[in-house]
């Protein structure tokens, strides 16, 4: 059970790294706190600045994100988000023999940090839609001694951890949030990871979800995540592309 929990923590934390949370350029209202089990704690530090961090696994993969709103004019909102992560403790924990060993224990996991930076621009489209475009890059430091053979070659994980092996990566993305009626909303998004110079140098992720708002405190989302990504391969190829389609379900609790 402990090993399963380990794998779960690894996957959930790494997946969360670099997510475009909460998806638009808007920041939380000043003084407002939001708490999540797996999502980061979010705090409206000022009227145009939001700070978020993880609480449950802060010791395994410490990280903090600052989102700063720079512009809010007419239908446009523009922000930048900046995050720093320290994945070393978590990766060391899964570099182990036996069940739960996602990385071979023969590999040393050095001290590394990554910095994720992005620009988010949201535009209100009529009453019921918000379109958000995103562009950013990530830098990593300390990974030069990390063996290339130690990668975790799984969808969602490989391309997020790639920054530690490659030193940098780029991300582009777009979201469309909309409301269909009083109870139903939808979200369609796409994200492109680009890791020039590395085997498995891109991943295109797309998500589609519909959400039923049972009340102001609880909602259920259903949808899918599609990952079309390139991964390392060997003779006779250098890379191989794989498509994964993952059904999604999401339960969301709210507290004002």
């Amino acid at each position: 059970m402990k090993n399963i929990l380990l794998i779960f923590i690894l996957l959930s934390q790494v997946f969360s790294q670099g997510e475009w949370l909460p998806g638009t350029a808007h920041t939380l209202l000043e003084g407002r706190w939001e708490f999540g089990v797996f999502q980061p704690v979010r705090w409206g530090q000022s009227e145009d600045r939001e700070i978020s961090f993880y609480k449950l696994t802060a010791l395994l993969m410490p990280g903090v994100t600052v989102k700063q709103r720079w512009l809010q004019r007419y239908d446009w909102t523009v922000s930048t988000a900046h995050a720093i992560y320290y994945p070393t403790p978590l990766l060391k924990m899964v570099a182990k023999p036996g069940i739960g060993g996602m990385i071979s224990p023969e590999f040393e996991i050095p001290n590394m940090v990554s910095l994720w930076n992005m620009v988010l621009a949201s535009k209100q489209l009529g009453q019921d839609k918000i379109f958000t475009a995103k562009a950013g890059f990530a830098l990593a430091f300390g990974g030069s001694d990390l063996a290339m053979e130690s990668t975790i070659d799984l969808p969602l994980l490989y391309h997020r951890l790639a920054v530690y092996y490659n030193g940098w990566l780029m991300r582009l993305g777009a979201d469309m949030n909309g409301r269909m009626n009083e109870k139903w909303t939808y979200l369609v998004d796409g994200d492109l990871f680009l890791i020039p110079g590395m085997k498995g140098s891109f991943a295109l992720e797309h998500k589609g979800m519909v959400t039923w708002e049972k009340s102001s405190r609880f909602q259920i989302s259903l949808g899918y995540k599609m990952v079309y990504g390139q991964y390392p391969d060997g003779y006779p190829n250098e890379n191989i592309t794989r498509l994964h389609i993952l059904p999604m379900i999401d339960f969301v609790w709210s507290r004002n």
Partner: protein
Amino acid sequence: MHQCKPLFYILFIVLFSCEPLVTTFDDVEDAVLYEAKTFTTIPNPDNALIILSWNIRFGIGRLPFFGDSCGDRTVMTEKEVLDALELIAAEIDVIDPDIILFQEVDRESKRTQYIDQVQWLLDHTDMNYAAYASMWQAQTIPSDGIGRIDAGNVVMTRHEIESAERIQLPLRTDQDALTKMFYLRRNILKAKIAIPDQDSFYAVSVHATAFATDDTKQKHIDKFKEVLDEMAAAGDVFVAGGDLNSVPPGGETDYCDEDACEDDVFHTDEDGGPHLEGSYFNNFENEPNLVKHLYDTYNSAIDSAVAITAAHNTHSTSEDRFWDRKLDYIFTNKNVASGSGTTFQSAIQLSDHAPVGCAIILE
């Protein structure tokens, strides 16, 4: 607002992605066929074919793999694997066989940098065709950093393979459900080969269980013999062999001392047990004689009278020990050319198994 999105992403990766997490197989299904990038001339067999059986330890030579040699490594570098494959290809060139029965060949495995060793060996030897049957195929093995894996048996030949089938062998019954789900699914690979002037010529590659402590090995060898008996009854010609993980009749059965790693606990009970998995060949009644029926029924590359001699040992777990037991065999219902049976013991650095070869006579 609380959102549990990551949790559900992870659950669904494991449970619902398009590709199964672990590949299971039908009792009988088609094998995967390969061709070399460039063909070499198919020779006239001249009334004889040279056969080779070789467990190549997924092309890592004697590197200290964690699973079988007291090693501490799981993932090899591309250079290490290619260097080992070069040596294997060179040995094949020297032996110059017509048909090779391989075991433990990787083709899409993290541990060997995803090199398709079937294609690589076809493209770097005089072999032209191959058939592959996986014994271990999973998107990821979440243990010891193994990751993605695809390893199995191969029949490789200069002559065209007309068809090939993968015959499932029984799974071990001495494992918990989770381990069993991610564990090996061993098989018999049976390939029909177009040999001139032979109507129904088959080559069969098998790899029996190594670590089972129940009677799974008995089931594997029984099934292997059943497949051979069916071919013999149908009037087919076959060469069959592989790593049977069984010692010859009359051979030593306890290699715990030889194979023990630091911290291994064994031979502590009054009755001599417990024993190390894979190092003890008397786990159940008649295990020491598992191969006897094959020797009694068919011709073999290495005669049973000399099979337990040091000159025909084919395996050792450490490069520091010379071959100390025989686990690899070739059987046929044709005649073996007198004196042609050879155990190529000089290949000590190329794998933890020595290749075994012989020439069979095509009347």
